């Protein structure tokens, strides 16, 4: 009997996970989260943006760390063209003190982040977007309907940054948008660290 209950629980949990979050084409919710400079940041603050390169990331995950310089490059390249980077850390700082707000400030300063690094303390935004890992990228485009999700996935296919012929998925997607097209490749996968969700209180 116990086995059946467990199987049911697993099946139920799997359904919840699959049902959550945005798919390409969905309209993404705006947020109001605290930046490392203490100010609150929303997408609505950027009147001139055509969209955003949003990344769920954190301080401690080696895969996130491996991509930090590439995030700065993306922001430098595309902010002036209307697609700035916004980084969001959703990790539970109780489970991972390295991912605390204070440590975010240190990380942003040390790495010279040119973009906001926001704290999703309630984890509501990561849940709404359906982020599961860090880093996890979402590109959104401003449309008449709202902020439309046009790409979900990884920055490129070479976390180690050693392959000169790597496929730069995010760049290709933003270039498509700037050329007036929807991204041809709009969904990719990569290995990442699981987002550290807060323990459910029973």
């Amino acid at each position, binding site marked *: 009997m116990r086995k059946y209950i467990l199987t049911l629980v*697993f099946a139920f*949990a799997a359904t919840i996970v699959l049902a959550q979050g945005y798919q390409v084409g969905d309209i993404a919710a705006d947020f109001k989260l605290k930046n490392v400079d203490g100010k609150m940041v929303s997408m609505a603050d950027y009147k001139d943006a055509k969209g955003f390169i949003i990344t769920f990331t954190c301080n401690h995950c080696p895969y996130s760390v*491996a991509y930090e310089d590439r995030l700065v490059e993306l922001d430098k390249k595309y902010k002036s063209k209307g697609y700035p980077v916004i980084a969001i850390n959703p990790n539970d700082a109780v489970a991972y003190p390295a991912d605390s707000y204070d440590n975010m400030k240190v990380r942003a300063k040390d790495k010279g982040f040119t973009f906001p690094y926001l704290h999703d303390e309630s984890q509501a935004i990561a849940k709404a977007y359906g982020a*599961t890992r860090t880093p996890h990228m979402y590109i959104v485009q401003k449309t008449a309907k709202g902020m439309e999700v046009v790409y979900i996935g990884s920055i490129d296919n070479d976390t*180690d940054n050693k392959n000169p012929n790597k496929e730069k998925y995010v760049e290709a997607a933003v270039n498509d948008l700037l050329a007036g097209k929807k991204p041809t490749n709009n969904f990719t996968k*990569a*290995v*990442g660290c699981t987002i550290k969700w807060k323990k459910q209180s029973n």
Partner: protein
Amino acid sequence: MKSVITLIFSLILFTSCNTTETKISEKVIQEIDIPKLEALLNADTDTTYIINFWATWCAPCLKEIPYFDQLGETYKKDKMKVLLVSVDLGSAYESGSVHDAMTKRNFQSQVLYITESDAGKYIDLVSPEWSGAIPATIVINNKKGIKNFYEQEFNFQELEQVYLTTKK
């Protein structure tokens, strides 16, 4: 370089604990590429494979690996095999970090290292349900048509339940 380390390690093992049951062969990391992974996932056998994807930097992975070892030990008379597949970056593998983690933590199950650097090429191959987050585990028995994927961390009890449901 790696083979030298393995050789030294094997010699130490051989000279210092040749009376124990430690199997030297299990202390070698097997490299696995996409075709080999595909062959493993589609193996025409009634052996149940419990394949865990982990990395040296993933704390929840390191925490649960002893439970996978315990499962392998508890059911070693069954037609089952526990495999620990490292998805570490190439730099971590080349520097010996994967090997160090395996030996320092005394992993008992067979450790493999996936040599493909583009994870997008194997994530969907393992399971379309896998978002790419780890720890992740797939339980396969192709003769029984079992292919159950879990993107979660296990304790021993949960893992044992998952295995026992495949035995029915």
